[in-house]
């Protein structure tokens, strides 16, 4: 019984079905382990965690500069910015909005810099459902390539205070 002291000779190698199951499990665990490095080199979707230290005020300045040079319109008072394909794009998370609206080209890649002004925020792109964590003080660089055209919603999925549910944004892909 598992609640009693075991027999003296309890140390035995596994046998029978138990042994088969351990072998199967170990093989499966190794397959799962290998999948991640393989995908890192062969797959198209990876989170490399590329990030740089940045003061929130300095990041806001970069966002403002990008708006000044690349603004192409406005929606509900939020500037629409069209960054150069292959270049840098900036997105700021703050209580409670994603700022500004970005306009990207399908099939082009961008270095999307995302950071937070105040609290931690969750970058969540719908309806594709891609999620990244955003921290104040960290310039999180996502090298993204939109694969389909359309209007995408951005929401926040890390609790950021009472107005958390008001925090939305938008990415337009043409």
């Amino acid at each position, binding site marked *: *019984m*598992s*609640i009693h*002291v075991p027999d003296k000779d*309890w*140390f035995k190698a596994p046998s029978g*079905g*138990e042994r*088969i*199951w*351990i072998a*199967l*499990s*170990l093989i*499966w*665990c190794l397959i*799962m*382990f290998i*999948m*991640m490095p393989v*995908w*890192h080199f062969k*797959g*198209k979707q*990876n989170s490399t*965690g*590329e990030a740089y230290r940045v003061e929130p005020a300095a990041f806001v300045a970069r966002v403002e500069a990008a708006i000044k040079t690349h603004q192409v319109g406005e*929606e*509900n008072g*939020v500037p629409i910015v069209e960054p150069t394909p292959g270049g840098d794009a900036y997105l700021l998370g703050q209580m409670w*909005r994603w700022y500004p609206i970005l306009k990207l080209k399908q099939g082009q890649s961008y270095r999307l810099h995302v950071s937070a002004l105040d*609290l931690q925020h*969750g970058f*969540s792109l*719908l309806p*594709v459902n*891609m*999620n*990244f*964590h955003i*921290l104040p*003080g*960290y*310039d999180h660089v*996502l*090298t*993204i*390539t*939109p694969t389909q055209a359309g209007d995408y*919603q*951005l929401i926040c*999925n*890390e*609790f950021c205070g*009472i107005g*958390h*549910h*008001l925090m*939305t944004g*938008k990415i337009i892909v043409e």
Partner: protein
Amino acid sequence: MSNHLENQVRTCDTTGLPVCLTAQKFIKLNGVFAVIFLLIGAIAAVLLALTRWPAVHLLDAQWYYRILTAHGMNMLIFWILFIEVAILYFACTTLLNSRLFSKKIAWVSFVMMLVGAVMVNVIVFIGKADVLMTSYIPLLAHPVFYLGIILVAVGTLIGVYNFFATVYIAKRDKTYDGSVPLVVFGAIAAAIIAVVTLLHGAVVMIPTFTWSMGWTAQPDPGWYRLIWWGLGHQSQQVNVCAMVSVWYLLASLTTGAKPLNQAVCRSAFVLYILFINLASAHHLLVDPGVGAGWKIWNTSYAMYLAVLASMIHGFTVPASVEIAQRAKGYVRGLFGWLTNAPWKNPGFSAFFLSLVIFGFIGGITGVTLGTQQINILAHNTLRIPGHFHATVVGGTSLAFMGLIYYVVPLIFQREFYARSLAIIQPYIFGIGIVMLSFGMSFAGSAGVPRRHWDVEFTGANLAAGFDSGTHLWLGVMGIGGVLAFIGLLTFILLTVAAVFFGKSNKGRAMTPWATPKTLVTEGDVDATEDHRSPGTMTLVIILLVTFVVYYFANWLALTDVWHVR
């Protein structure tokens, strides 16, 4: 040879095991307060389910986040830690035939934990700590919130010290002969992980407390997440360890099961100790500042060796039940042992449902969501609580409920009323949790965020929202939550009625829950010497196939999203 003090021990009238009266007192104290915190957490739970169900949307935003904070703290920290200290005290005294090392230390531990838990609850409910359980910096709570958590953590550490000291004096006084029983081994593993976990808690909470007092600068939010999850995720591994020990215990109590191979079971516990502390990384898979190599190595628990341990227990536990059942003569077909299991014994049904829910839902989803790249599809969505409600609620809490169906008659020496209600309670709770978990998981697959008051985004400047199919899953979640709440409330009422008003069974054996009759006599060699478990083998192969399909379906889903590096 026991080391009990005079008049400080009794012999259990049911099992014949020795019960240290000091330990019994603290098992009772911890048990009672555990159930009180469970009740607070449960009331919070149903309010949350009724808020996240869009058709009901009960609470306002402020109370939603406040109640969410209370729910996490009471369920995940207080209910679990109080009951686990009780389990540790039980394992190191009764099962080792020893007295508890120190009554004074037990008091210090208990009072610190209680004061800390009350402080946290008060400060949360008066609205000074709407920061959710994780209190991610720079969110700032009242200093009492952090101080309460520190008190609970240190109090628990002191209780764990009492446990280790008892294990030591039992060994020194030779109260048992040979190796410790398997359940004690599992408890020791849980206690070792608990020490590492609580030290992480101290490392992260102390500078956060001093920051909240204005004495020191704000800690780095990335650093905070890394260390906090060394507390937050590892404490769940304490639960896994304790739960697996309880599986072995309940398998023994309800069907007379013996572990197949003690070396295998024990090695699996050692794998938990060695590798599970890496799991903090599960929460940082899409974080900035930590690289791919770090994420891959740590999220896989170093090549998934801790997952291997769970898969081993997932086989050895049901296999031991199967072999015990076959030895009793239930040999017909692949599953005759299972269909003739004591399904009307809430100790058994809670244990077996816990095993199935933990393995098939909690385990499979957890490993898949914790895969580095797949986490892009899951981070901070409802898929995450969909996963952990199947592990820590459908798994751990349900197993602990099964245990309490034995603790009340054996330790409190009181009988349950309304036993027919107790028989169906694990099913109501189990079905509710499964519905909740499915609802959350499917809604989360559409991107519905966790910890979010309004997924209609009413009043947002730029519109967002979800389709009707997603709303349907949120409804399933809501109904499941209500059902689970009914199951949980039934459990609490039954337990409270038994503990405070139940008939005493002192001097006689407890009224037994159903256990399977033996159909064969001892001499029937054919049945008793058969140590194969084909039914369990079939079940685990089904588990593995489900696992493989779910895992690769998620990779396939990942190929649909934008390219990103």
